[in-house]
């Protein structure tokens, strides 16, 4: 059986797993984006706070994903929960760091003008600062998404959903029929999905970043 025959044969299951994989990654990224932006907004004015937040997020990233999942299983059990928790934690670093960098990079003259003409604190943040930091935040989300596509495969170790199951079961059954096809199909699926999401990000940037600040 060739790889293509294998994919055609198992299309229904692969499509479902692909969908679950993407859904898991996208939801984790969104959750991390909400948390990361909130953390970034909370700390960007204080150099110490920024350093602590970035440092903590970096530390999380240095933990091997296998180890982190292993540590989370006793707490959350098996299934999607430990997988999503791990993914969100990993996605926090690029998003938080880019939010801090983006907000700190806003020209002080612009925020001063915004305050000076009568925008309240919240309006300055939502209408000016976050709008100007948005390209950086979006770039952070994009990096996070790419990273999570790979890490979500490992999350199958904790019985997380997605294409990781294919890869793992293919590898453990190495030598038996279709084992290579199964592992390959899973891996290729992840690559293809990552490229698709990359395209999605391109269009999101196109439609949400003001022409006045597009590079």
């Amino acid at each position, binding site marked *: 059986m060739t790889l293509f025959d294998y994919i055609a044969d198992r299309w229904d299951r692969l499509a479902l797993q692909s969908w679950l994989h993407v859904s898991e990654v996208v939801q984790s990224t969104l959750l991390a984006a909400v948390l990361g932006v909130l953390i970034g907004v909370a700390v960007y004015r204080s150099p110490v706070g920024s350093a602590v937040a970035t440092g903590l997020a970096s530390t999380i990233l240095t933990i091997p994903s296998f180890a982190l999942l292993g540590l989370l299983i006793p707490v959350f059990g098996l299934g999607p929960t430990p997988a999503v928790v791990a993914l969100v934690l990993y996605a926090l670093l690029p998003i938080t760091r880019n939010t801090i960098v983006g907000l700190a990079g806003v020209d002080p003259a612009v925020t001063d003008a915004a305050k000076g*003409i*009568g925008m309240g604190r919240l309006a300055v943040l939502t209408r000016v600062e976050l709008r*100007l930091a948005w390209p950086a935040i979006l770039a952070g989300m994009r990096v996070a998404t790419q990273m999570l596509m790979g890490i979500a495969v490992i999350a199958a170790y904790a019985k997380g959903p997605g294409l990781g199951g294919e890869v793992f079961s293919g590898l453990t059954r190495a030598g038996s029929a279709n084992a290579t096809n199964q592992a390959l199909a899973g891996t290729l699926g992840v690559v293809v999905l990552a490229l698709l999401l990359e395209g999605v990000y391109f269009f999101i940037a196109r439609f949400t970043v003001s022409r006045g600040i597009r590079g």
Partner: protein
Amino acid sequence: MTSDSTDSAVSGVEIQLEGVTKRYPGSAEPAVKDVTMTIPAGQIVVLVGPSGCGKTTTMRMINRLIEPTSGRITIGGEDALELDDVRLRRKIGYAIQQAGLFPHFTVAQNIAVVPGLLGWDKKRIAERVDELMDLVGLDASQFRDRYPRQLSGGQQQRVGVARALAADPPVLLMDEPFGAVDPITRGNLQDELLRLQADLGKTIVFVTHDFDEAVKLGDRIAVLGEASTIQQYDTPEAILANPANDMVAGFVGAGASLKQLTLLRVRDVDYPDLALTADVGESPSELRARLARAGDTYALLVDRRRRPQRWVHVRNLSAATSLANIGRPVGDTVSTQSTLQDALEAILAEGGRAVVTGTRGEYVGMIDIETVTGVLAQLREEHESAGDAGDAGDGVDGDGTDAADGDGHGGDAGRAGVARGDAARDGAGRADGGVDGDAGAAADSGAGTS
């Protein structure tokens, strides 16, 4: 400029600062110490002083971007410290260096921010945006949908001013708004601000470290020293003629007399009708007889509409049969609208005196170097006697040493006048090619000394 704004409709309101102090925690000396001043409605008041003197801090306390530690600020009789600070700022125009435009908004969106915050409806906002762009000299159809980065520095600054004026606030705060543009654009923007102000009559508080800009724009100038203490608060004419103390004198710089000349126009001074004029149709012998009677050696030939044409010397007349082609053409002339600085330039170029022409180009008189130095000496005397009469109470900290200093100068007014005349001649001689350029050079040297 004073006369320009007095006959305009005043839409501004008076601002009063009473004992306003700003003390930052952890620093022994206050950043702004006990400032008391009244900013009259509808006037441009320029706060000028060296970097770090607290002039920007003082201005930012008016719209409470910085909260005063103590003191009272009233705007049009209302206590600014009692109001909600965000609402207060919507009623005060604010323009800053490099414009501070929102880069992600179009020009129209930038201008529309404050009306939007005030809840105007869309149609009214759109009309107001077009009106303002027209007011600041930007073609609405061309620039409305551009982004700030697609504009030149000068255009951005215009948008900044339009944004500050958007909700028609009675008060405008401007913090070195023209600091970051090239000198030519800056000059144009200053001219336009004066033109706008002549129509609008806002109360404008303008912060700059450039004394020339202060002289050009200010109805009144407050020269600030350390911790924003007011060294002198008066009209530009008075400050130039009679600096209250050494610090102000240093800040005014070496070119004070030349700067004063930019504030005066030929029509404001008495220029004598010295020249003997002759129509080109007159016969040479007749003119020679008239010159002899008047004891003069030169005559000014004028055409039928009495426009100056050529100078003829009595020597040229003896051989001539007609006045049509003899003599030396008249070079630079000055009109009654010209500033005395332009007049001085023409006097120097013409070798001692220049022809003054009226509104239709007709000969009205002559102006010479004595007229110019005389006016300066007279101005200085006027302002000095005003100062002696106790006018120093304008918030100037008239401590003993400064007053004594002033008297010392007063006693020697004659000598000082002569010295200044020399300075004017030296200064103008240096530039020779352009009076404007010279003022800049004088300003530079002035900044150096301060």
